């Protein structure tokens, strides 16, 4: 926000892009976890963070300083996250990147105003300084802070690990990278370069607030990314595939690794046959799976309640109104086991479940954090998330997808005389107020007379959120939640998300090709 005016941009992308660009030091958002490990005593809510000297007494003291100027609410968010990347290039796992993040943030809320301070130093004195900084958002008489805390009721377990990542040795991970590399090269002689990234992440968060709640959660994440470059008649193409989830080492079962290899090679080599995509408005069929990026951009961001509270979203006056065909149901769901976008609890300590954005074609519920929930007088939806301890939470998506509909994939494709079929995507973006959004198609097909005829590549699609939802006129029964490593960016914060879709037809949308009118 300080350095430029891009602060309100919203985008999604495959995190792999970041991995390639930054090597190691990029942050992947929060994680989620496992049942709370037992604390040092039956009355203490502090388990994991006791190792850093964190005590209830120092939290109570910080909350007291936080409310010293009359804030309505305060919370303290501790985070410890260790991520390890191993990378293979030119046939060898010859580099590793480790990032350790340890810090604490103190937030004070007054109405819908926020004060925030943070530090890497977890001492009592540093915590108090953060609290005093955050307290300055309010200007009134001091409020009472809790002296005792109650542990939140038992959290769900959406990503229990059989073996924590700390116990997996490098010797166990290395063969995964080497194996994928060898099999990608073996799959097609046109492959010239292969890059493989393997990431595992162990995260822990502790949230304590002025209502006396204390919640601790352990949050794993893993990601495997493969990129390959192939050459044919002097022409080069690059493609890849990646899988991600809040899971342990057993995530990398043989069938998943087989799929990673197969998809990475197929998505690259088909590009040699691709023809330029057409330009202009035409029917577009979205394949089941990662096409959920459509929902993320066309409606998901616009339904984040902060934009509506501020009156700047194109959906700000549409709750309760029909916006799509009755068979369109869209949810944002924290509960999908082992999904990259799953959470047990949000970063404000609120229960996270499934929220209906669109129910039978009617706009149903915004995605709330506690500030917007209070503003609207509703219960929080568990969407208050943050990238890390340096950031105040705000409404964010988790796993966003459309529920199955009444049509069949085959009849949807057969219904299109001239259009395109979109399979894989790299990124998308939206303007919240105007409603215009885009998503970038890496692989797809031309549809001619109801059949997939020739592959296409590298084409951006642009539409307007509410208009496009009206034009979703066929929804198949084949919902897939994508297994890829999606990262969502908003106001400078990145969080991991998931998305999914059944096969869907949009009757008309602008395809940004250059092969003449479609």
């Amino acid at each position, binding site marked *: 926000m*300080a350095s430029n005016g*891009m602060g309100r941009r919203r985008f999604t992308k495959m995190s792999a892009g970041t991995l390639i660009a930054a090597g190691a030091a990029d942050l992947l958002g929060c994680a989620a976890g496992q049942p709370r490990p037992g604390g040092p005593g039956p009355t203490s809510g502090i388990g994991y963070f006791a190792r850093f000297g964190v005590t209830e007494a120092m939290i109570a003291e910080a909350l007291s300083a936080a409310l010293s100027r009359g804030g309505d609410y305060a919370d303290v968010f501790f985070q410890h996250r260790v991520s390890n990347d191993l990378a293979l290039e030119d046939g060898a796992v010859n580099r*590793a990147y480790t990032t350790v993040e340890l810090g604490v943030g103190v937030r004070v809320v007054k109405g819908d105003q926020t004060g925030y301070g943070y530090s890497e130093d977890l001492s009592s004195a540093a915590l108090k300084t953060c609290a005093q900084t955050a307290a300055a958002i309010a200007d009134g008489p001091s409020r009472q802070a809790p002296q005792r805390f109650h542990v939140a009721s038992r959290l769900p377990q959406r990503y229990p690990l059989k073996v924590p990542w700390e116990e997996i040795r*490098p010797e166990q991970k290395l063969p995964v990278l080497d194996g994928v590399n060898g099999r990608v090269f073996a799959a097609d002689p046109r492959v010239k370069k292969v890059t493989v990234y393997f990431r595992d992440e162990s995260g822990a968060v502790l949230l304590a607030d002025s209502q006396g709640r204390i919640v601790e959660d352990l949050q794993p994440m893993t990601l495997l990314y493969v990129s390959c470059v192939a050459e044919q008649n002097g022409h080069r193409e690059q493609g890849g595939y990646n899988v991600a989830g809040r899971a342990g080492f057993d995530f990398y079962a043989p069938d998943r690794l087989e799929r990673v290899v197969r998809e990475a090679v197929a998505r690259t080599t088909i590009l040699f046959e691709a023809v330029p995509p057409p330009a202009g408005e035409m029917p577009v069929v979205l394949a089941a799976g990662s096409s959920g990026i459509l929902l993320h951009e066309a409606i998901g961001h616009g339904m984040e309640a902060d934009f509506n509270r501020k009156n700047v979203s194109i959906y700000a006056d549409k709750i309760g109104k029909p916006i799509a065909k009755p068979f369109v149901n869209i949810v944002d769901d924290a509960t999908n086991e082992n999904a990259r976008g799953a959470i047990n609890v949000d970063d404000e300590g609120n229960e996270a479940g499934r929220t209906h954005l669109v129910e039978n074609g009617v706009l149903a519920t915004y995605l709330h954090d506690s500030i917007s929930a209070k503003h609207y007088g509703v219960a929080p939806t568990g969407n208050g998330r943050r990238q890390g301890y340096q950031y105040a939470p705000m409404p964010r998506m988790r796993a966003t997808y459309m529920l199955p509909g009444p049509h069949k994939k085959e009849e949807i494709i057969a219904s299109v005389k001239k259009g395109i079929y979109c399979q894989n995507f790299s990124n998308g973006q939206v303007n919240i107020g*105007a409603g215009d959004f885009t998503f970038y198609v890496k692989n797809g097909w031309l549809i001619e007379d109801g059949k997939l005829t020739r592959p296409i590549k590298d084409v951006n699609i642009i539409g307007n959120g509410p208009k496009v939802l009206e034009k979703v006129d066929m929804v198949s029964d084949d919902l897939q939640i994508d297994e890829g490593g999606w990262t969502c960016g908003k106001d400078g914060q990145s969080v991991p998300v998931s998305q999914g879709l059944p096969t869907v037809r949009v009757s008309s949308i602008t395809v940004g090709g250059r092969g003449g009118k479609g």
Partner: protein
Amino acid sequence: MPGSQGSESSMLPVAQNAVALAQRKGAREAAASAYRVRNVEVQWRDGKLEKISEATTRGLGLDLYVDGRYSSVSTSDLRPEAVERFVEDAIALTRKLAVDPHRALPDPALYAGQAKVDLDLEDKRYGEVDAPRRRAIAQELEQAARSVKGAEAILSVTTGFGDTLAESFRVSSNGFVGERRVTDFGMSAQVSVKDPDGRRPEDWDAASARHFHALPAPEKVGRGAAERALSRLGSKKGESALYTMAVENRSAGRLLGFLMGPLAAAALQQKRSFLDGKLGEKVATAKLDLADDPLVPRGLGSRLFDGEGIAAKRFPVFEGGVLRSYYIDNYYGRKLGMKPTTRGMSNLAWKLGDKGKDALLADMKDGLLVTGFLGGNSNGTTGDFSLGAQGFRVRNGAIAEVVGEMNVSGNHLELWQRLVAVGNDPYPYSSSRSPTLVFEGVQFAGV
């Protein structure tokens, strides 16, 4: 360090100790960067404070060279016992990796010859900007936005002011020690307006500078944001066609970035660059002429040395449309057998044209002015790109109807051969300092 919390010790010993510790624990070579950053932000919305945030943070990054193997690690946990354990673990992990003969610290000869200039990147009066001042600027930004003609259509104004003081040290076991202290000040305004058709178009304006007194008046930025947002009212999709395309200076950096990324040595060595093998070739019209210049006083990308300690020097990137240099870092330079230039772009110094945006539009007569790209991407391996775009139709040399929800596509190897004009108006709030650019015969998709 005025304005920060008391007297804080230097980060130099943190970096030095980390290198010494790494060598004691078995690394043959090591380099460390240690930083401390104070960051303050104020956000203001519709007549009141929205958010304040303030912190001083620190961290340590370490490149380890162990038995011919390499890893790069970082931590924000600087407790001495934690750092010791962290370095031990990192070295143990590095030993499990494959040997990489190309991994070594840069040749110390590359450290030599740092420019003897004061880049003036630190505003010594940083501490004079206090909380009431930040708040007053944020407030002024909003007032300016709400003072423009047509302001009754404004739905919401969010403004902000932020400043940063960053101090970092880089130390390597083969003799490099470098210090960098920089300040940044930035302001921004974002305005949403009500379109009678139900849409709520938005736009922004912003400014940033190394020195507080180099910032423009908040009045200008606030008004700019509101005028831009109001200009979006009644936006329509244009026809799919080939157009002459002018790209406003502040958006041109995005397009240019897709040309600069594939110049990185990593992209070349991994065969992921459409500019591989093009050194010395004409890849654009003669209008494309720019150098990488790290030594611009107060420049947003200025530096005396790069992230590896290599002394920063100006070098030509494109001369008269001919590609003259790649961005070669130490590691990929060794892999490719090429001499390092620098790792990553600093500032771009353009050979500018002699006309501003309005005169360029008058010259182009008919076409499209792009004032913002939305999403989209570019394939660095092939040069194919496809980007969402909004802006204005240009007719008879002047701005005509407002257009949006359009898309522009092409291939960079063709696009830059159609660059017909370069403005005299480099965008001052970005290190790429791009002027307005005009291209002929560009494919747009719309209706």
